[in-house]
């Protein structure tokens, strides 16, 4: 038996107390006056045998109870040696080094490099090491197999060189993903090479609060993989970050709103904002751990950079703000030209007002057929049928409205001769309503939310019956009598959206309902190719590219370099730097801003509880890397004692003995029955 607190065994000396008291009872202290001692001689007390045994039994009970209490306080446990981590296996360590933007502070990166060099140097010859760099994604710098392939003397220098070339970037931090990547790397390596031995994921990071851990699922963590945390902490605590807030209205000269967030644990709270191009500074007071929204003057016409002063770390003090520019869209309208409330164009124009983010041009010029983002035909395609078909085949969307007189021939031309279009029967004044609407179609995406998917208030009075549609046609909406209302027909790369009922007042109420505008905008967006408006882009996020047919597309990065996305590419992903990017599409240039993720400015270190939770996740045994042997032995003993908790049984037993002693003493102290005692 071993003891966690052997000093308490000194309390066993208390057992002497009942023994001393027992022995002192041999000599009674009670003094009685007596008339004369002339007939007496001294006699030692003579206890009868039964009394002696009873007294010894009580003494034994008392001594035992005291001894058990003393032993319980000493916290005994049965020692067994700690589980030996298989020496026969290979120790694998996946080192995760943080290359997020927050590692640009002070000298965090050089210290991280130094730490990794120490780890590499401390690796035993048979061990396998891998180094992964992570910000919002993890990438392998040196894999386990690379390590094994490198000569032992070159490993350290290779890792150093690769990491130096890498350096901290501008990404945000996803710790959960990084840890999972580290564990996966170990498991993959074990599958390939010999398994067994210690497994460790070592995290070298500044452990900022803004680092996300949500993707780390504790129950899915592989058992036996230890997590060791090497915190590289900054000395200066004050840091504030900027975030642009969305703009309402289209006035480019309007003031902009910006949120300043001051990280917790800092000491400073007074900050200054000014545009890099010049202008009056704006003062702000933001206590640590809080944020404030501040108004700043409008940026220069072409966009600018807002600079924050007053904190210790400048890496997140620049906010790129692009000029307001509306996305430009073109709609080719084929139909009547009069702007007549009884017609269709009237409502079409009013469905696309000019906004800060979108400017829609509706024209009837055929020459713009391929450049248009959406083709709308209410009066038949006529001579433009060829051009329209060609545009659709190249990927555009054609909205074909069958309004009775026209459209049937066009539909047959596009869908095939078998399609028949007939005028629907006249109905009572209550009309039709749309009963089934398939909101999963991209064109109907605005109605995906059930709150907006109620079409029963929209009345239709006239519609055309379409039948014998080809197989690739898909009915996305039906009237309440089951006949198709809206049909989609893929043609080439594009789509033909057929409406069997027009929106002019004679046919239906839809143009007057709240569904009309989102429907048309949905059709416009579904066709694709419309530039994204003012958006918040975070470093690493892809940016949607406009589809253009005239000339090449180029993107100029903040450092001046240009990239030419591949033809047909729909997004640009090389947004690794924060700043203003320029999208050059031949004639026009548009800027958009890429900034650091706001979470990256939360530089206060993770709370201790979360770090402990991480460590506990991978706890395997007593020996963690770097823990001195003495501490490890103590903690192993504490673990054993905590499992066994023998002290509880000892105290329980002592309690039982105390109760037994009390009962026995009470019974013995009762006066003896007559004739029982001498």
């Amino acid at each position, binding site marked *: 038996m071993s003891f966690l607190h052997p000093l308490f065994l000194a309390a066993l000396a208390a057992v002497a107390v009942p023994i001393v008291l027992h022995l002192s009872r041999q000599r*009674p202290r009670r003094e*009685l*006056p*007596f*008339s004369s*001692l002339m007939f*007496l001689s001294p006699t030692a*007390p003579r206890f009868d045998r039964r009394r002696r045994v009873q007294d010894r039994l009580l003494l034994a009970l008392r001594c035992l109870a005291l001894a058990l209490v003393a032993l319980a306080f000493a916290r005994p446990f049965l020692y067994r040696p700690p589980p030996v981590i298989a020496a026969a296996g290979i120790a694998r360590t996946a080192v995760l080094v943080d290359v997020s933007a927050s590692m640009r502070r002070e000298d965090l990166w050089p210290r991280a490099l130094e730490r990794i060099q120490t780890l590499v140097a401390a690796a035993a010859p048979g061990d396998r090491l891998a180094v992964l760099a992570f910000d919002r994604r993890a990438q392998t710098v040196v894999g386990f197999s690379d390590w094994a392939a490198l000569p032992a003397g070159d490993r350290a220098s290779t890792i150093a060189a690769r990491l130096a070339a890498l350096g901290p970037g501008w990404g945000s931090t996803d710790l959960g993903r990084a840890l999972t990547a580290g564990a996966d790397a170990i498991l993959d390596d074990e599958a390939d090479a010999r398994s067994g031995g210690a497994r460790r994921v070592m995290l070298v990071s500044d452990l900022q609060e803004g680092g996300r851990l949500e993707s780390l699922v504790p129950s899915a963590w592989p058992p036996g993989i230890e997590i060791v945390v090497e915190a590289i902490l900054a000395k200066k605590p004050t840091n504030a970050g900027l975030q642009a807030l969305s703009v309402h209205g289209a006035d480019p000269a309007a003031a902009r709103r910006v949120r300043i967030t001051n990280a917790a644990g800092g000491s400073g709270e007074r900050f200054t904002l000014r545009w890099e191009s010049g202008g009056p500074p704006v003062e702000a007071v933001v206590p640590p751990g809080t944020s404030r929204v501040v108004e700043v003057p409008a940026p220069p016409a072409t966009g600018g950079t807002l600079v924050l002063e007053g904190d210790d770390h400048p890496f997140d003090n620049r906010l790129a703000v692009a000029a307001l520019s509306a996305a430009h869209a073109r709609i080719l309208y084929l139909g009547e030209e009069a702007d007549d409330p009884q017609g269709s164009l009237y409502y079409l124009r009013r469905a696309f007002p000019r906004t800060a983010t979108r400017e829609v041009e509706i024209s009837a010029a055929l020459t713009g057929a391929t450049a248009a983002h959406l083709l709308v035909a209410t009066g038949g395609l006529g001579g433009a049928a060829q051009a329209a078909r060609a545009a659709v085949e190249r990927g555009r969307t054609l909205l074909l409205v069958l309004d009775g007189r026209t459209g049937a021939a066009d539909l047959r031309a596009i869908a095939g001769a078998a399609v028949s279009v007939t005028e629907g029967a006249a109905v009572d004044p209550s009309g039709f309503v749309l009963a089934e609407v398939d909101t999963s179609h991209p064109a109907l995406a605005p109605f995906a939310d059930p709150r907006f998917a109620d079409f029963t208030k929209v009345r239709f009075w006239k519609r055309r019956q379409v039948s014998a549609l080809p197989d690739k046609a898909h009915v996305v909406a039906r009237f309440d009598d089951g006949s198709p209302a809206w049909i989609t027909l893929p043609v080439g790369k594009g789509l033909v959206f057929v409406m069997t009922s027009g929106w002019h007042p004679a046919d239906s109420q839809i143009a007057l309902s709240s569904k009309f505008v989102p429907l048309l905008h949905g059709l416009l967006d579904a066709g694709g190719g419309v530039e994204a408006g003012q958006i918040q882009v975070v470093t690493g996020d892809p940016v949607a590219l406009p589809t253009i047919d005239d000339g090449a597309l180029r993107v100029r990065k903040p450092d001046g370099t240009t990239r030419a996305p591949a033809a047909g590419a729909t997004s640009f992903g090389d947004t690794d730097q924060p700043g203003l990017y320029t999208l050059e599409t031949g004639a026009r240039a548009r800027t958009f801003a890429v900034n650091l993720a706001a979470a990256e400015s939360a530089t206060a270190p993770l709370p201790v509880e979360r770090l402990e939770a991480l460590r506990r996740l991978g706890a395997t045994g007593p020996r963690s890397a770097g823990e001195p042997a003495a501490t490890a032995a103590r903690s192993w003993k504490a673990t054993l004692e905590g499992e066994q908790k023998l002290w509880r049984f000892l105290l329980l037993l002592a309690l039982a003995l105390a109760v037994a002693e009390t009962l026995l003493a009470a019974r013995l102290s009762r006066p003896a029955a007559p004739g029982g005692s001498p």
Partner: protein
Amino acid sequence: MQADRAAAGLVDASALMRVRSIELRAKLVMEGVQRGLHRSPFHGFSVEFTEYRPYTPGDDVRFVDWRLLARTDRNYVRKYEDETNLRCHLVLDVSRSMAYGSLGHTKGQYAATLAATLATFLCGQGDAVGLLCFSDRITDHLPARNRPGHLRRLYAALERPPHGAATALERPLLEALDTIRRRGLVVLLSDLLAPIGEMERRLGAMAAAGHEVLVLQVLDPVERRLSLEGPAMLRDLESGRTMLVDPASARGAYTRAFDAHLEAIRVACQRWGIDHHPLSTDEPLDQALLRIIDRRTRRVRRR
């Protein structure tokens, strides 16, 4: 036992001793005694010859000492005390051993009450009563009188608690013998817990001097039987000496020694014609007195 006593009209000793006034206690006991008594055996039993005086014509010839006339050829008349006058000397042990008691009252209180009762009775019938208190010597002496107020002085003297040192009877008895000139009744009230040797000689001398000696040995039931519970350190009341005694193991030898002592006293008293009454402090005083009187009556009749 107590119920029987109560039924017999006897006063329980412990209950009696709770009465604070010794005079009242004595009167209570007297009532009890007189209820059981028809005739006082103390009445007129003693004729006290005091002196010779020359015969003068007219004296009652009955009182002429013819023996003396025959011897000396002179006429003398014996002079006598009143026949009904008794001279009683109460000799009370007030040593500290008499302060022992296990029943709520001490031997000393018991003996004093007994003495007070006798004094009340005798004074009541016109006899003279005196008191000698002793421990290792005479500490108090009230000559035998029967004057007004004398009984009160007797009560006062009897109420003083035991204070003497050791019990040593030789010297006090010797002093008593010297003090008591006139022949009378000597009542010795003591526990007699002292070596028998010299005590016997003094008692004998007293008897030889013509006194009628009555020895009332007052003992406590616990000291009689050593009926103590559990071992204890016993402290001698007179000497202060302590001794660790286990009653269970010492009882046998103690009772044997005690009984031997009592027997020796009895034999010695018998040898000298002395009335010996061992009394226990748990016995009702009136019962004890009646017993003493009864034996005395029978003894007087035998004479």
